């Protein structure tokens, strides 16, 4: 105690001059970690950014500087425009379904309905499966000859659906696969949020005669704003990175109907061997996802505290 008092009474400048407290010591200690981050994160990021200003084509003998050409070509390319259109539909649809369904299931589980507690353990399974496996499974599930889903529809005397060969149904198919894999994650996130809410406002509202829906809409949901914000952020970031499931289910087809920006970038890089162009596509996608996140932050409902 006496030592602490002496320490507190020491002149401030003298403590800062100590070797262990100096800023340089901090930099020195953080140095190796910083170097590792620069090597594995900043350098490739910077390198690919620089690459996006060059005609970096593996099949060409040289890689000339072309300024913003890769960016202008990307923005005017019909294939990119189609990918962007698909991306926005995919992002909006998956997030809307996953957040809504995730919240609904979380509320049911939190309501301690019989049997649903055990279900919460099963919910861990889909997010734990590798997206590549999910993609392959859904490719076969949606197969019109051998797939389980069309067989079921046929047994029920319902019309079979051309899941992967019709452009509109193909987009629905990849949305279903993504919803199947990621909704459980939303459930777990919202369940954790629901279980950490204070009980007093909910009980007071019930005593005042509010219905279950009124309590949920006017108290529970506003109290869950921080969790919903995090969930939305995670899903926006994730949908702009979605690749494996789509690639294994449709390869972006038919005719680009399910091509997301990642699929478009992959085709440019690994089939078209045009790395500069692919890098530009990736950076445009990055900017778009940042813009969406910025818009999300500015939504009045989410900013209220």
């Amino acid at each position, binding site marked *: 105690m006496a030592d602490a008092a002496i320490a507190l009474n020491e002149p401030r400048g003298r403590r800062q001059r100590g070797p262990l407290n100096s800023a340089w010591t901090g930099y020195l200690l953080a140095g190796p970690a910083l170097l590792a981050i620069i090597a594995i994160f900043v350098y490739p990021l910077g390198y690919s950014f620089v690459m996006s200003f060059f005609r970096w084509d593996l099949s060409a003998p040289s890689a000339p500087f072309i300024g913003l050409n890769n960016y202008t070509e990307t923005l005017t390319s019909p*294939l990119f425009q189609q990918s962007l259109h698909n991306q926005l539909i995919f992002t909006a649809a998956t997030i809307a379904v996953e957040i809504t369904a995730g919240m609904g299931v979380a509320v049911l589980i939190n309501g301690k309905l019989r049997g649903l507690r055990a279900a919460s353990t099963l919910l861990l399974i889909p997010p734990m499966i590798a997206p590549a496996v999910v993609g392959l499974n859904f490719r076969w599930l949606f197969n019109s*000859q051998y797939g389980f889903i069309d067989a079921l529809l046929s047994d029920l005397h319902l019309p079979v659906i051309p899941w992967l060969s019709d452009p509109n149904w193909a987009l629905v198919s990849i949305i279903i696969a993504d919803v199947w894999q990621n909704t459980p994650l939303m459930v777990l996130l919202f369940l954790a949020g629901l279980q950490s809410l204070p009980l007093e406002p909910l009980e007071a509202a019930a005593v005042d005669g509010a219905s279950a829906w009124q309590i949920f809409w006017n108290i529970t949901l506003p109290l869950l704003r921080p969790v919903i914000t995090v969930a939305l952020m995670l899903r926006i970031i994730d949908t702009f990175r979605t690749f494996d499931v789509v690639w294994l289910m449709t390869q972006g*087809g038919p005719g680009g109907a399910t091509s997301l920006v990642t699929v478009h970038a992959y085709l440019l890089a*690994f*089939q*078209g061997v045009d790395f500069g162009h692919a890098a530009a596509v990736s950076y445009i996608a990055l900017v778009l996802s940042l813009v969406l996140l910025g818009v999300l932050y500015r939504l009045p409902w989410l900013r209220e505290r």
Partner: protein
Amino acid sequence: MLKHLSRRRFLQSSATIAASAGVAAPRIARAEATEIKALLITGGPLYPKYWEQIAQDFKKKTGITVNYDLLEFTPLTSKTVTLGAARSGLYDVYSTHTAQIGSFFNHFAPLDEYFKSEELEDFYPVALKYLRNPKTEKLAAIPRNMDARVQYYRKDVYDAHGLKPAATWDDLIHVSQTLTGDGHYGLVVPGQGDPAQRTFSDLLWQAGGEWVDENNKPSFNAAPGVEALTFYRDLIQKYKVTPPDAVSYQWDENSSEFSSGAVFDTFDWPGAYATLSNPATSKVVGKWSTAPYIRNKQAISCAISHAMALNSVSKKKDAAVEFIKFSVGAESQTLNFQDFTNFPSRQSVAKQVVAAAQGEQAAWLGQLEQTIATGKEWPKLPGFSKVCTIMFSAIEKALSNQATPTDALNEAAKESLDAMTQAGAYQ
């Protein structure tokens, strides 16, 4: 220390170092050349054993160890692209393919200086032609086995209906329509990505068209291209003789539809002969036969090849070339045929294999020879790899009725011209 170094002493030391280096260098080179690294193709359970045997036989013969990694076709191509972009020297030797060779002309070392012209004469000319860089005329890879297709049909079903395998486009429609029904389809074709482009390409040539004109400008959107894509689309959408979701099929689905017995006719690669003959992978063993590829105005389809290439930044080129020569040698090609029914790229080996074959297999090999004799491949011009990505989308759009064949091809031709111009195809 430097103060005491006289000129004489400096020269003496330099001479000693130079002499030591001179004596040591060949030893170091020899030591390096006892081990090389290769990225090789696999697919199916037999491939690892095949490469193991090739590597062992090669070591016995030369004393050189081949450390290799195996990857299936698509990941192998992606990895080669990545390593090529990084100018990596990780592998000395690569498995490659005519279909992708245009992307790797800068990454693979020309092989002309390592092969005498009389050695090259033994390979099928069509295989060598499309493995050459059209700009430099240098050979970027050497063919290991030929990839060409023939028709595989259900002989039992055809005989029961009194049908003969289709020889022309019109026959194909008639025969397939006759056999479609009761949950079965007369035909299966792939409709997605590279397999769709490969199918369109065959039909384009059969309709009398070409990918590019004499100035290397896209010409696939001319009348023969439209005729080819219309026929291709109509098989799926108008005549409905294929499974309805053929638009989403790759080679795997294409083969499995036939081997499962759901479909009665398909066009497949040489490897299908072994797969369809094996009860573990086929439900139609003993029920099928082969026939020549269909024709229209011309009888042309692709004749491409799996090949071996040398990394241009390899530091062990001599040893690597020895392995490449061994892996495309007569012994290795014979083994490749025995294990996988892969058709040899050396005409001398092909002649032996054909002479030794009997019955159905002899007929099949004759049909393959026929395909190879008239076979072609799409051009390997700068930017054509990007044209392929444009074509994937265009063909799928037409096949899934999102665009008419004319609109899809015109749009693709416009984009292809831009892509090839940017890549320097017309400089």
